[in-house]
């Protein structure tokens, strides 16, 4: 399955909306096992994306993902800025010549996260959501349950990357904030493409 510009734009718009609505939730999650700013950070990114779209409507998929990436890189900071930024920048480069299958697209993003974060699946980071989603998309089994399962599974992990890793065992039993914001990203996708 592939996504076209108009739907991809809807996807990112919905993501922006969810980030704005859930700023406090993400801050609270980050207060428990991080430094309390993930909601504020992502909200700053969301506002920057909206502003960039308002300034210039994206002309194609590469443009859409690049605009999203630049907004995240230039306005978010923290860990999530370069991570989301790199994922979307790599996705933008990948769709320049060829509109990828959605599963492959999200895999490109996931690989970007791993490279930038020097991290991998199972370290209680947003990768724990991106990777299962990319796999489910490729196998045509993507639905809300996939996202929820990924979150629940990651919740019980001990973090080994990011700030939560400083808590060692105590990071267990808390939802990773970046995983939750990624869940919003993919819930937005789901709303656009349907199960």
């Amino acid at each position, binding site marked *: 399955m592939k996504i076209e510009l108009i739907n991809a734009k809807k996807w990112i718009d919905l993501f922006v909306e969810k980030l704005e609505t859930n700023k406090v939730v993400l*801050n*609270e999650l980050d*207060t428990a096992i*991080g*430094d*309390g*700013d993930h*909601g*504020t*950070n992502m909200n*700053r990114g969301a506002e920057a994306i909206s502003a960039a779209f308002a300034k210039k409507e994206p002309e194609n998929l590469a443009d859409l993902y690049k605009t999203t990436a630049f907004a995240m*890189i*230039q*306005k*978010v*900071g*923290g*860990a*999530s*800025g*370069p*991570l989301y*930024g790199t994922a979307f920048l790599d996705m933008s480069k990948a769709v320049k010549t060829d509109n990828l299958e959605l599963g492959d697209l999200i895999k490109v993003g996931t690989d970007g996260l791993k490279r*930038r*974060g020097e991290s991998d699946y199972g370290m209680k980071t947003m990768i724990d959501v991106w990777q299962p989603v990319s796999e489910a998309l490729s196998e045509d089994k993507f639905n809300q349950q996939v996202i929820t399962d990924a979150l629940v599974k990651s919740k019980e992990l001990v973090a*080994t*990357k*990011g*700030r939560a*890793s*400083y*808590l*060692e065992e*105590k990071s267990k039993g808390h939802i990773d904030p970046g995983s939750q914001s990624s869940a919003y990203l993919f819930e937005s996708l789901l709303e656009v493409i349907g199960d």
Partner: protein
Amino acid sequence: MKKIINNVEDIVPEMISGLVKTNADLVKQIDGTTAVVRNDAKFKEQKQVGIVSGGGSGHEPLHAGYVGDGMLSAAVAGEVFTSPTPDQIYEAIEAVDQGQGVLLVVKNYSGDVMNFDMAKEMAEADDIEIKTIVVDDDISVKNSEFTQGKRGVAGTALVEKIVGAAARSGMNLVDVAALGQRVIDNTKTIGIALHAATVPAVGHPGFELANDEIEYGIGIHNERGYAVEKIKPSKELAHELIEKILSEFPDQTGSFAILVNGMGGTPLMEQYIFANDVLKELVDKNITVGFSKVGNMVTSLDMQGISLTIMKADAEWIKYLKEPVTTIAW
């Protein structure tokens, strides 16, 4: 939450503006950024390796307070507890490079490491030579190749002082970076909190401690530590932290530098009492202290608490630590 602020979103730009306005002879702000660069008379004449640091805000006077002759060339402030973005760091690098390359001093947090890395890539595209050193002095966090590793905390101020002095003395980029790395390897810190900090955007303290409890091993971003215990007399706290740090230094000959650092909400009075206990115990242990400093150097907003940094420092480093600088806050 009671804080002397205006809008939460304006905290960092307003703070930087206040700092620059009240210290215009020392520093200036790069337009459209929250990066602060040297503005003193000597800056343009001195041809030296640039030293750029930065990170999330909330640790003042780190880093902008250490910009000046003999220490940092520029400092980049992110949002509260949030790494600055690569473009801001890139602009700071551009502003201070004098053709001798730039050393980036980064605290070991994934955000800082990633954003400084991206800025490095941007600057290298402009043929600016860049080296990065990552400070990870906090021994309360286990080091392991499977984790993020140790955090960068109060020792950062000492590292910045030494590389800044070395760069001023004319040392080249490769050597300054190597020196910085050796200093980091010999710098160990541990901190305690009596009361957590309140992140303005969150509005309440990051964690709760009872009226007689302290948290051991806290980070500078409200990260909880490894144990909560009843508060003890300063002497006993000093003893415990020293024991913990010295276990990291198998060789206790030679001389050491120490930093007793206030976390922002703890008055100097308590810091000096603690420093007194630290020095007493080190004397009892026959450890030579060649340099010591006390104060709010690397803070965590309004956190109440203290950290102790011990550095095994050879004579040259002690000299670098003692050399006068013209900064706002060293």
